[in-house]
């Protein structure tokens, strides 16, 4: 025997023999062998073998390849014939084709729609020219080494200093969204409306030239140059000026952080919905600190108040980390006066502007961005899309193999007149590609129709921008082709493996492929459906749970009126920093409010009235980072939320007092607070009773605790209990809440309006019911739930098609067995049970696998809610039950008709 070392590698030889033209094989093998020995002699057996492989691969050239191996795929006529036969097959079984193509198209359509949604979510803020190099500064605060939260608010001077001192920072823009609502009016036509604080924004004058918000009218470079200039959106132009040209006209603004008369110098096109910056009015920042309530920013040299979002534009050669280090140093040296006594350390990091939308969730300090997305939802939807696509292909496999029975004769005939197995595989693959391509085009149509609806429903701008990208389509069609190959491969192999004798003899069922494989696929579909149903159930369960939770406060029957901003009579405040003027103004507005309250409660259906600066469900409370017991060092502080609230606030909202007393009229504003249980615990009072008459301090004035209320849920149950401080104050409150009787709302409203107009002339009368407003915060959850439900229904629908196919298939296989059973006396019920048993077993297997998965993913999803529903047995039982009923409905028709069929017919046919 020849030593193995000294002969060429067998595998390489076999490979060469396989692809090389037969008439060349001898000489090539000879040459290569000679070469092998030559190399072996000069170098080593190993090198010789390596070289042999190299030589073999170099023979992969068109001239040397065997025609018979590679020519099938180049044969145009055969292709044409395959397509024609595929098409005829589809046309012959219209019902089957409809199920098959429809199921696939639905899966692909859902996939396309989700892709567009994901694309939208992932492409926020990428329309800015230089978005790769644009960053927002995020500040992480630690106190005594304890993390105190992160947020995007910086001091006024940080950006300026960064530009001066840090190499690589090319420019900066600051942005400030007002915390206070304002009343905006056009003096010419008396259109007056209250505008949300978030819509009344301020920015550096370079804002328009650096960010890519196109101006419809006006000049980008100069629009924000004058201190009283204002740029408004197209929508606001229509709202306040109608069809008139707004340019050069004036708007009168009361409140909104800076009151005054502004001249319109620019009109913005509608802001893109995929921008994290959303506003309606834009004024220069100078306006805020010269004319508005930003005076304190100025007084402290720009290092004291952390109000501003700062965007840095950084040279791409500079690492963001290096900039952060320099920023930290700047803060360390300049902000020491405020940070050091309290042992606070600010660490900055730079957030890429494209990350803001999806990755700002973790900030504990409120962000001015209010259209944040959720990366978790994006991931979940992406997973669903993939699942649905897989289910659709699994379905295709099932349907195609299930039909093998019908096609066995065709295969038999083809084989007996000389078709090679490769040719048959080729034929079935062609059919698969045909079906997949038809489904793909149908899916595109479906997506085009659905996407506008989805965008409308989610209030996002789902364009077709993904669909206009050529590389998306090349990826999509590559996926479709790959999918059709993979899903077509199994049926093709099964169908082509039939032996002609058996099939033509009418005994074809023996070669029906591996039924266990298909059962596995169905079990997989069951499993996915179970997971999706459980997901839907869990989401709705959580929403119901949140809505039914005892909130600790009453929100029914509360009408909210947006408070006055324009007070025509009384003392004026001309200098926002003069405390005497402010006090006189406050005293006046307090007495006016008292008189208003006295007159409005005369009406029998109004039981309580109170003013406040925030409302349940709104996050426009003040967050004070450093509240502590009076006398304790500055580094002992804790976060707390402060809501300015007036007399009767507790009774109006039904907050339960557990110690102390409510506010009384003789108290001075902003000197007395009522706190919640959480605050008692956080500030170390021990018990509610001990807290009464204790003093708390922060950077502001020292306040005295007069009462303690039970814990309550101010907003969404996503977050845990937080210390709240109701600070006494109602003068100039932006919200006036009325507890009313719902018997005659129009009459009550009319009464409130006349009273309001007589006390506060010139203010718009805008009101809403708190409950509606409060429930708005669950809108995103409900939306998510509804979408999840929609996708679940689609997935189940597709899975049902597969199930239907399986049952039809097994019924057709067992037709003789059933006939014999019936002849021997089996009833319809037994037969139906026999046919159903198969998938019931699969369902229970799927259920067993589903339980741990549901447990794991359910717990993972619920983690983002501080108050959450329990995962109980119903979370497993209900999906199984639902799927059981759906499967029963899907298959009952088929099993019933099979069981009812006359056994003579089935037994006689041979």
């Amino acid at each position: 025997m020849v030593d193995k070392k000294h002969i060429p590698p067998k595998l390489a030889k076999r490979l060469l023999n396989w692809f090389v033209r037969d008439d060349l094989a001898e000489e090539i093998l000879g040459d290569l062998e000679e070469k092998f020995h030559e190399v072996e002699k000069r170098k080593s057996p190993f090198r010789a073998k390596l070289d042999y492989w190299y030589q073999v691969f170099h023979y992969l050239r068109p001239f040397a390849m065997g025609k018979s191996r590679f020519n099938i795929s180049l044969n145009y006529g055969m292709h044409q014939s395959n397509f024609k036969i595929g098409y005829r097959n589809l046309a012959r079984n219209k019902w089957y084709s409809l199920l098959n193509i429809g199921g696939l198209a639905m899966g692909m359509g859902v996939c396309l729609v989700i892709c567009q949604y994901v694309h939208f979510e992932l492409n926020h803020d990428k329309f800015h020219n230089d978005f790769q190099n644009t960053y927002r500064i995020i500040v992480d605060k630690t106190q005594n080494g304890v993390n105190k939260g992160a947020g995007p608010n910086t001091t006024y001077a940080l950006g300026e200093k960064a530009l001066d001192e840090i190499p690589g920072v090319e420019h900066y823009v600051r942005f400030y969204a007002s915390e206070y609502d304002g009343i905006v009016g056009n003096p010419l036509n008396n259109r007056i409306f209250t505008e949300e604080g978030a819509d009344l924004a301020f920015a550096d004058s370079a804002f328009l030239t650096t960010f890519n918000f196109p101006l419809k009218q006006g000049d980008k470079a100069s629009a924000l140059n004058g201190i009283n200039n204002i740029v408004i959106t197209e929508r606001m132009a229509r709202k306040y000026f109608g069809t008139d040209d707004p340019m050069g006209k004036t708007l009168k603004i009361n409140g909104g952080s800076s009151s005054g008369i502004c001249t319109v110098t620019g009109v913005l096109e509608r802001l893109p919905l995929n921008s994290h910056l959303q506003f309606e009015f834009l004024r220069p920042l100078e306006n805020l600190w010269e004319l508005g309530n930003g005076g304190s920013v100025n007084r402290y040299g720009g290092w004291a108040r952390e109000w501003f979002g700062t965007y840095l534009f950084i040279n791409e050669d500079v690492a963001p980390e290096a900039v952060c280090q320099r920023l930290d140093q700047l803060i360390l040296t300049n902000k020491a006066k405020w940070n050091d006594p309290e042992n606070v350390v600010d660490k900055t990091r730079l957030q890429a502007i494209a990350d803001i939308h999806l990755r700002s969730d973790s900030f504990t300090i409120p962000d001015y961005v209010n259209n944040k997305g959720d990366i978790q939802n994006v991931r979940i939807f992406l997973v669903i899309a993939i699942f649905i696509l897989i289910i659709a292909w699994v379905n295709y496999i099932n349907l195609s193999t299930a039909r093998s029975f019908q096609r066995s004769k065709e295969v038999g005939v083809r084989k007996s007149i000389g078709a090679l197995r490769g040719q048959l595989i080729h034929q079935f693959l062609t059919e698969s590609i045909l079906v997949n391509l038809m489904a793909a085009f149908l899916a595109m149509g479906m997506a085009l129709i659905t996407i506008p609806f989805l965008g409308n429903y989610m209030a996002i701008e789902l364009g077709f921008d993904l669909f206009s990208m050529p590389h998306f389509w090349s990826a999509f069609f590559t996926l479709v082709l790959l999918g059709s190959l993979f899903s077509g491969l199994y049926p093709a192999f099964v169908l082509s493996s039939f032996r002609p004798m058996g099939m033509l003899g009418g005994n074809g069922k023996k070669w029906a492929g591996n039924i266990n494989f298909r059962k596995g696929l169905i079990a997989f579909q069951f499993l996915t459906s179970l997971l999706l149903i459980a997901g839907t159930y869990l989401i709705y369960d959580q929403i119901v749970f949140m809505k039914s939770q005892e909130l600790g406060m009453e929100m029914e029957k509360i009408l909210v009126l947006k408070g006055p901003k324009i007070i025509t009579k009384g003392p004026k405040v001309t200098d926002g920093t003069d405390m005497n003027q402010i006090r006189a103004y406050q005293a006046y507005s307090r007495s006016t409010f008292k008189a208003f309250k006295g007159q409005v409660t005369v009406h029998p259906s109004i039981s309580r009235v109170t003013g406040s600066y925030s409302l349940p469900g709104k996050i426009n409370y003040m967050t004070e980072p450093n509240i502590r017991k009076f006398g304790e060092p500055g580094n002992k502080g804790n976060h707390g939320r402060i809501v300015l609230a007036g007399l009767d606030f507790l009774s109006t909202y039904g907050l339960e007092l557990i110690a102390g007393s409510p506010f009384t009229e003789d108290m001075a504003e902003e000197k007395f607070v009522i706190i919640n249980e959480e605050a008692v615990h956080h500030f170390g009072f021990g018990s509610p009773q001990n807290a009464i008459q204790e003093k708390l301090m922060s950077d502001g004035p020292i306040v005295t605790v007069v009462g303690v209320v039970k814990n309550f849920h101010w907003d969404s149950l996503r977050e845990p209990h937080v210390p709240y401080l109701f600070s006494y104050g109602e003068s100039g409150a932006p919200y006036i809440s009325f507890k009313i009787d719902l018997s005659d709302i129009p009459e009550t409203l009319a009464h409130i309006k006349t009273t309001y107009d007589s006390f506060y002339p010139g203010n718009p009368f805008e009101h809403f019911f708190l409950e509606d407003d409060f429930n708005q915060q669950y809108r995103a959850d409900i939306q998510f739930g509804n979408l999840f439900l929609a996708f679940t229904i689609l997935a189940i629908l597709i899975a049902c098609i597969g199930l239907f196919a399986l049952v039809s298939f097994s019924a057709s296989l067992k037709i003789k067995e059933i006939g014999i059973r019936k002849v021997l006396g089996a009833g319809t019920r037994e037969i139906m049970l026999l046919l159903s048993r198969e998938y019931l077993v699969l369902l229970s297997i799927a259920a067993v696998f589903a339980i741990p998965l549901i447990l794991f993913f359910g717990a993972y999803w619920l983690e983002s809610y501080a108050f959450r529903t329990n995962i109980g047995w119903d979370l497993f039982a209900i999906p199984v039950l639902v799927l059981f009923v759906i499967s029963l409905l899907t298959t009952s028709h088929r099993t019933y008709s099979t069981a009812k069929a006359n056994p003579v017919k089935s037994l006689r046919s041979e």
Partner: protein
Amino acid sequence: MKETRLGEFEEIILLLVGILEDDAYAFKIAEEFESQTGKSVSIGATHSTLDRLCTKGFLSSELGKPTAVRGGRRKRIYTISATGQRALIASKELRTSLWNQYPALTKFAL
């Protein structure tokens, strides 16, 4: 019409076939190419060029005798045809005429 131009690689292979005479088969030609030019070439690449030269009519081939070192397989021996000969001469003449017109030649010929 068939392509009758000679590429550089083709020309060298053609010349090597002429040099090797009775020993002109793919493996030997590839070896000779390596030793003459110092550049390596795979047998496949050589074979494909030989095949192309045959279709162009510059070469003819026939199967030779089996030898033991080749595991008893026969080899294909190539010979230059009359057309091939003409093409080589035409190519050489073109070069010579070009070299003769090249002025630098007289300067550096010393």
